[in-house]
């Protein structure tokens, strides 16, 4: 479903961010993308979201190829790939319902469906009671839930999360992680970038990919259970 083949990304000023990275994520997988700051986690997610194109290699996402898809057609891919961020990126001054409803409206939802579907999505993320609250009045964990509800409006096949718990306390982090697992249980793949190794260790069922200086140095799917891992 998501396939990176010998992907490299180089920036004019920053230099190489990813070097020859290859991996394959299947439908319904839960993947942690770990590594130090600057290791290439966010770049990998941006490449999967086609916010950027690789300098070399190919990114394939749900039938779309980074080599083939035109700028004017990226919106089709975006509807298959939901994304959330550490800083939530919600529309301030609007309610939780309006934030989710806005995403529905701009992705061609029928007018009469907007409010009930937005309500349903907010219920799914456990925020039904706070749908009328302005987002900047919500806690960090609640704001992240709104962002997740927004990412689900187009019923994507994969949810990308870039350090989604980076701004949250332990309790809110646990809540968001449970929510990700619930979403994953419905068959949606989740790829979560995080530098928090303790968090990663508390979910041993998930697959872990580790990046270091732009290279993929560890893939738990290729290492036998119980070993300490090693280079891939």
């Amino acid at each position, binding site marked *: 479903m998501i396939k990176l083949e010998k992907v490299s990304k180089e920036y004019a000023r920053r230099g190489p961010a990813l070097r020859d990275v290859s991996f394959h994520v299947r439908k319904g997988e839960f993947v942690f993308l770990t590594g130090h700051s600057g290791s290439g986690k966010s770049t990998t997610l941006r490449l999967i979201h086609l916010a950027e194109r690789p300098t070399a290699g190919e990114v394939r996402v749900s039938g779309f190829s980074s080599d083939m898809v035109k700028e004017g057609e990226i919106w089709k891919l975006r509807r298959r790939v939901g994304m959330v961020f550490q800083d939530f990126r919600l529309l301030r001054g609007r309610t939780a319902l309006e934030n989710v409803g806005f995403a529905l409206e*701009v992705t*061609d939802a029928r007018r009469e469906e907007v409010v009930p579907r937005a309500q349903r999505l907010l219920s799914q993320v456990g925020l039904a009671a706070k749908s009328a609250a302005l987002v900047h009045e919500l806690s960090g964990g609640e704001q992240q839930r709104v962002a997740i509800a927004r990412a689900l409006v187009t019923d994507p096949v994969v949810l990308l999360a870039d350090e989604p718990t980076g701004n949250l306390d332990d309790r809110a982090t646990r809540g968001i992680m449970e929510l990700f697992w619930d979403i994953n249980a419905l068959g949606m793949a989740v790829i979560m970038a995080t530098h928090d190794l303790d968090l990663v260790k508390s979910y041993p069922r998930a697959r872990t990919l580790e990046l270091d200086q732009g290279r993929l140095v560890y893939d738990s799917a290729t290492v036998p259970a119980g070993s300490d891992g090693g280079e891939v």
Partner: protein
Amino acid sequence: MNYVLREALAGFKRAPVLTGLAAAMVGLALFVVGLFGLVTHNLQVALSQIESRVEVVAYLRDDASATDIEDAVAGLRDQPEVESVIFVSKDSALARARRDLSDFEEVFRGLESNPLPASLEIQLSEGNRGPETVELLASIAEVIPVVEDVQYGREWVDRLDTLRSLAGAASAGLGLAFALVAALIIGTALRIAIFARRDEIYVMRLVGARDAFIRRPFLLEGFLTGLAGGVVAIVLTAVAWRVVSRFLFRIEWLPAGWLLAGLLAGGILGGLASIQAVRRHLKEVT
């Protein structure tokens, strides 16, 4: 309410200061164009008033019979450039001279016979008062047998034509310059207004809205902002017109067509500037 209209109006509600500022900037830019329009229009009115006095006078022979004169009048009236032909008899010419030159009453009283000839005053229709047409009409009048002499103030007509050409070129050049400056200001104003809503553009791209869909509410918002700026410009121009008319000299107000064109120009420029600003943001926001 339709999504596009609702989101366009929401721009005014969510960022009233920036949107108001943008409309005010558009208004001021168009106000300069409005003032220029006021000057141009009044110059045109003054020129056309002077032009309406352009006429060809054909002086008739003293022995011209009434039938000959009627034929001459009919022949001239048949010319498409002619608006009217007025016959001035010898007696009328003398009466007019006495009225206009009252200081020379003694001279007129001493006259044994009327020395002034009868004449045909040929008025030209609007748009046919240029030197070529005037000369053509004069040459037609000259060959009429009962006509002794033709006068039309060649120098005056030539100067008027030069003045008209100069005014036209200056209006076009300055008008274009003012319009370009206004377009640049409108573009900048709308870019600021769109910048205030860049988060929405980002979210729309993030969740997979089509580019055309993203542009639509901003196009309408830009059009409405430009329209509001147009209204501001008309109000300011009207104030300037009132002040000049009351305290300096009387001038004409702008024709309704010009006002409508100004409003539409504001709206269209606003819409285009908005689209340009959104396009720029769409390139930056991935």
